[in-house]
């Protein structure tokens, strides 16, 4: 029943009981927040509010405050959008794809990775909305009856596909995440001493009681949602790539985009998970649940997806020459040797070279090295989007229209602001929500916990003496 190969490293270190798991996860929520939490929250809030200020200024003045011009009509806004959506992909990949593959190491990280997904998709969703300039007509993206005809939205447009993809992705991820949270909120509710928190967690836990029938449904719903979320996560970034791939701009008009974007999304998402997890496990004392083996597994994913991304870059480069299309070839020569060579160089170094270092076991098991690489990869993936978007646009068919893009302080403010807001949300999550999927971790305690796993097999030893077993 509870058996797993002895040579497999345990997923839960130390001699934990079910109660210890509850204690370890609930203590940070029940105790007073450490001073460091307030400091980080304060910094994130200030940065986030600065970003909100920039957004209000933009809405009041118009999107002319961005550094866009007639040639480069899309720059940081869509770069940030794609970057944030990409980061979001790791959470769904961990909780859905790894659930279908029965990867038990996901259980320690899926809750916080999925929280990261939701907050990242919030941030991503902001950019198309503020790009409208008139935020209050955002509902025009929905097919609602109106007095213009009725004039409907264009269902042939990848931008509308994006509206459906992102909103489906956000809402389905939210539901998936919350269904998993309900039993854990019940655990906190039943431990809560203060009346206010008792009341709050009672509402949040929806009256969960842990009946056998409910658990039966819970497991099936999780499985079916994982089955739905898996093609969903692949479709979302494919559709994001269609925003570019269905156009006829050299450098964008390529069939390799959907798989290349999906791999890139998983790559950057896992890097963000590493950044957050390495800090969180230390700050919240979760080293026994998220340890070197988990980091190593994630680094392997980073290495594989990084290699896919690298292959895609080189394929793209080769095809641009092999196609014989002058404009296509120029787009790529210009990327590598034109005025944006430094962005291309940053992308190549961060995304192609750095993940290859993960082939070395000591490196991929080193936490400090992992942390550095995770930051490097996130920078690299931002540059990837910047390279694809800005360098493809800045020199088009007509040399008289050639231009450069210089971000305005509003561009920078909005981008930095979303990073601040993201951390505001994530810090609130870490403070008030169970950051580990308690009910899932408890199910693997006996099969993958260190103390149970390496304990002598009592059943087989007793068989000779007692026939009762």
């Amino acid at each position: 029943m509870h058996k797993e190969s002895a040579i497999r490293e345990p997923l839960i270190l130390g001699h934990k009981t079910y109660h210890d798991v509850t204690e370890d996860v609930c203590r940070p929520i029940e105790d007073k927040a450490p001073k460091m939490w307030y400091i980080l929250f304060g910094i994130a809030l200030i940065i986030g509010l600065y970003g909100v200020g920039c957004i209000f200024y933009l809405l009041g003045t118009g999107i002319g405050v961005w550094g866009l011009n007639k040639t480069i009509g899309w720059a940081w806004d869509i770069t940030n959008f794609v970057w944030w959506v990409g980061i979001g992909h790791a959470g769904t990949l961990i909780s859905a794809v790894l659930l279908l593959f029965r990867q038990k190491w996901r259980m320690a990280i899926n809750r916080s990775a999925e929280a990261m997904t939701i907050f990242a998709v919030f941030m991503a969703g902001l950019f198309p909305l503020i790009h409208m300039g008139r935020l209050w007509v955002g509902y025009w993206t929905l097919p609602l009856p109106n007095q213009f005809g009725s004039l409907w939205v264009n269902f042939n447009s990848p931008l509308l596909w994006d509206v459906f993809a992102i909103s489906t992705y956000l809402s389905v991820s939210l539901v998936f995440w919350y269904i998993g949270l309900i039993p854990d909120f019940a655990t906190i509710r039943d431990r809560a001493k203060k009346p206010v928190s008792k009341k709050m967690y009672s509402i949040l836990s929806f009256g969960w009681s842990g009946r056998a029938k409910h658990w039966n449904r819970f497991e099936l719903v999780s499985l079916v949602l994982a089955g739905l979320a898996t093609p969903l996560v692949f479709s979302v970034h494919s559709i994001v790539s269609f925003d570019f791939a269905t156009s006829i701009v050299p450098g964008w008009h390529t069939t390799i985009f959907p798989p290349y974007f999906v791999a890139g999304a998983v790559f950057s998402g896992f890097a963000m998970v590493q950044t957050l997890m390495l800090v969180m496990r230390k700050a919240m004392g979760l080293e026994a649940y998220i340890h070197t083996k988990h980091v190593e597994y994630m680094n392997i994913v980073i290495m594989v997806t990084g290699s896919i991304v690298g292959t895609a870059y080189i394929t793209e480069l080769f095809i641009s020459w092999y196609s014989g299309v002058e404009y296509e070839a120029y787009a790529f020569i210009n990327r590598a040797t034109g005025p944006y060579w430094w962005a291309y160089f940053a992308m190549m170094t961060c995304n192609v070279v750095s993940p290859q270092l993960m082939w070395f076991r000591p490196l991929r098991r080193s936490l400090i090295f992992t942390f550095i690489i995770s930051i490097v990869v996130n920078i690299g993936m931002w540059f990837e989007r910047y390279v694809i978007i800005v360098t493809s646009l800045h020199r088009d068919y007509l040399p008289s229209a050639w231009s450069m893009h210089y971000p305005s302080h509003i561009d920078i403010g909005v981008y930095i602001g979303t990073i601040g807001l993201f951390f505001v949300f994530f810090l609130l999550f870490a403070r008030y929500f169970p950051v580990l999927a308690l009910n899932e971790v408890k199910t693997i305690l006996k099969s993958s916990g260190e103390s149970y796993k390496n304990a002598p097999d009592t059943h087989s030893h007793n068989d000779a003496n007692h026939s009762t077993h």
Partner: protein
Amino acid sequence: MAERVIYAMYDDDDVLKDGAKMLVAKGVKISEVFSPFPIHGIDPIIGIKNTRLGIVAFLFGITGLMLATIGMRFFMVTDWPMNIGGKPNFAYLDNLLAFVPITFEFTVLCAAHGMAITYMLRNKTLPGIPAQNPDPRTTDDKFVMEIRLSENTKYNSDELEKMLRETGLIELDQKDIK
């Protein structure tokens, strides 16, 4: 009418499962098990049928697929046929490929949310509903088996208690519930 219920508490899922197997073999009806996480294999022992929520998800998915198809056909072909880049929408089939992404997304949207809402309603877990687990520790590390006397008429409460004590429980409690 008040009903007498026995709650047997265990501190290990496997002990509870072995105990449940033994009791069921003797003809005891176990009405409920409360646990902090899903105990794999307990459902067939205490006679819980597998959930049909998967079918629900499928039905909602089919509904979403149909709604998306009917909707897009109406918007793009019947009501206001758009001519984009010299590629007009004369018939739904002509332009089917462009409709695939949204059809897929809407199918997933309906299936996921339809199933999730049905799940909440069937479980009767909604905001504001009070919890019903007999002991707060059942969401932490304890496992409770619930046996109703009215469902086990061939044994009296003393006999049931005696049988339960042999299963390795840690606490035994009797309560009257409504």
